[in-house]
């Protein structure tokens, strides 16, 4: 099958959607399909291979305290058109098509089977509520919609119309499953360790709750250590630590992908004390793949990933006493740790890219009608796009222009 993937975010800037598209493309190619990617990038020369096509640069637009990247106009449109014409795709798969980016351009220009994945990583609902009706005429052309989580699906149903099947984010399970451990920290050998990963100075990640729980925990497990990995200000964290905790908290700083896997393989328990909703708990899947027993707060996304507590322990969010209890019980019970570790590995297997990519492939096969031909670029729609910039509301001008051309 010839597949065209569209990533609306700059390829050479780290981001969840970019990694998702990259891994999906790699896995599908491994399954013997022809896959091409169209993406903007900061530097054209940074694009890896000939299968990634440069779609220009995005314009950062300050929005609601963060930056949204916008890319819209005749130049981008002509790049999209050329990519569609030269690709001869059986199906085009757009990621996050709602913002004014090449994703939306592809929806406007392409005719044929279009699949879209809604990540809902960067969009806010206030913005979507106003923008949804404007782009609906083009999102209507999408034949198969995928949401990566319940949350993403809900956003999609509420603001953009239509329904979506849920296919979760994938994880490469194997690199996490086997490999070396961190030096001096071996699971079950070097004293009990608890792992925390994430931007530790963000309150919503919940590190303060965990530190509070550590205090109680140390009474029963005086040798326990907390390993904190991720970005943040180390001095501020160390300064805020009470005297009795200082010896038991180790800061590893920001770690590489390989070190992250080693870190997750090393800790006796992985703890995710997050206070606020993560749209998807990728790190939990990675921890499960690495065989780390998990104690996590009972966010909806987490309890779904942990199969309602059968693949990990769920604790009421923000409750440090309950967290201490759960951690302490788990550290005292090697048999339960082993059981959770096994259950976690099994649960993680369902998120392996090999499995996830096959489910995405099933979606492609559902939208591609045999013998219906490839995706084409419509000139008609190009006019709509040019006009859409000036008068997006209700698409009055597009049809006007079409009339004029006839």
């Amino acid at each position, binding site marked *: 099958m010839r597949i065209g993937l569209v990533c609306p975010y700059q390829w050479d800037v780290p981001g969840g959607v970019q990694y998702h598209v990259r891994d999906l493309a790699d896995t599908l190619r491994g399954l013997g399909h022809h896959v091409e990617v169209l993406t903007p990038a900061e530097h054209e020369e940074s694009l890896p291979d000939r299968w990634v096509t440069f779609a220009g640069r995005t314009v950062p637009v300050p929005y609601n305290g963060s930056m949204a990247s916008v890319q819209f106009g005749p130049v981008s449109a002509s790049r999209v058109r050329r990519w569609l014409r030269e690709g001869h795709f059986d199906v085009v798969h757009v990621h996050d098509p709602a913002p004014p980016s090449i994703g939306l351009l592809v929806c406007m220009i392409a005719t044929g089977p279009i699949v879209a994945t809604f990540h809902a990583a960067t969009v806010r609902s206030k913005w979507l509520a106003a923008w949804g009706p404007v782009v609906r005429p083009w999102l209507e052309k999408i034949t198969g919609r995928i949401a990566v989580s319940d949350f993403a699906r809900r956003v999609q149903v509420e603001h953009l119309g*239509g329904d979506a099947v849920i296919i979760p984010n994938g994880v490469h399970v194997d690199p996490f499953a086997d490999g070396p451990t961190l030096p001096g920290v071996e699971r079950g050998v070097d004293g009990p360790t608890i792992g925390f990963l994430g931007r530790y100075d963000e309150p919503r990640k919940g590190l303060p709750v965990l530190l509070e729980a550590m205090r109680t925990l140390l009474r029963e497990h005086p040798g326990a250590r907390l390993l904190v990995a991720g970005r943040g200000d180390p001095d501020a964290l160390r300064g805020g630590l009470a005297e009795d905790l200082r010896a038991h908290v180790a800061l590893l700083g920001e770690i590489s992908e390989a070190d992250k896997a080693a870190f997750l393989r090393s800790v006796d328990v992985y703890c995710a004390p997050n206070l606020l909703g993560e749209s998807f708990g990728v790190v939990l899947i990675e921890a499960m793949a690495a065989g780390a027993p998990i104690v996590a707060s009972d966010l909806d996304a987490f309890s779904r990933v942990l199969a309602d507590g059968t693949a990990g322990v769920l604790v009421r969010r923000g409750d440090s006493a309950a967290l201490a209890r759960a951690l302490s019980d788990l550290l005292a019970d090697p048999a339960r740790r082993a059981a959770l570790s096994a259950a976690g590995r099994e649960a993680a297997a369902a998120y392996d890219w090999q499995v996830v990519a096959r489910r995405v492939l099933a979606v492609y096969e559902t939208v591609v009608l045999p013998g219906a031909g490839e995706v084409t670029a419509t000139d008609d729609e190009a006019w709509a796009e040019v006009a859409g910039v000036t008068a997006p509301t209700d698409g009055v001008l597009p049809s006007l222009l079409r009339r004029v051309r006839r």
Partner: protein
Amino acid sequence: MTPDAWLLLAVGVVVLLLAAWTAWTLTRLRRLEARVARARAVLDDRLRHRAALAEDLASGYSAALGEDRASRLKTAAYEARETPAWDRELAENALGRELRALPPDVPGVPRELLADLAEADARMGLARRFYNDAVRDTAMLRTRRLPRLMRLHADRPLPRFFDVEDGLDAVPLGAGVPRG
């Protein structure tokens, strides 16, 4: 210009805008109609495929399944295939229930056939969801006030949802919302 001329101009602009909007909406309706038709074709194909596999199973391995179950399965598959296209949710539901009641491993039946059946069932679920999605988009546009008022749909019937149980788990609205 005289007030009359202004009025004429205003009416002219309104008529022009209305015409443009109508043309655009008709384009959308045409696109949606094609999308519904394609999705329907895929759904029909998936349903037929599932019924055919079920019939193979029932006729080829009736001994392994037990006479009772085999005959029920056969009837369900037959009903699903023979019922007219627009009235077959009940028949398909009966077949789906029979299939989902099958144990994952029946001695004497090749595993591949059972796996194929499960796969066919899941793919039917996908096709159904995409079809209903297309119907929903159509309904949303057609039930808006202006398209209804102008009878842009002519007298074409509104496409019907196809509702059967599928293997996909329903998600209650409200799940996964971040709470402060």
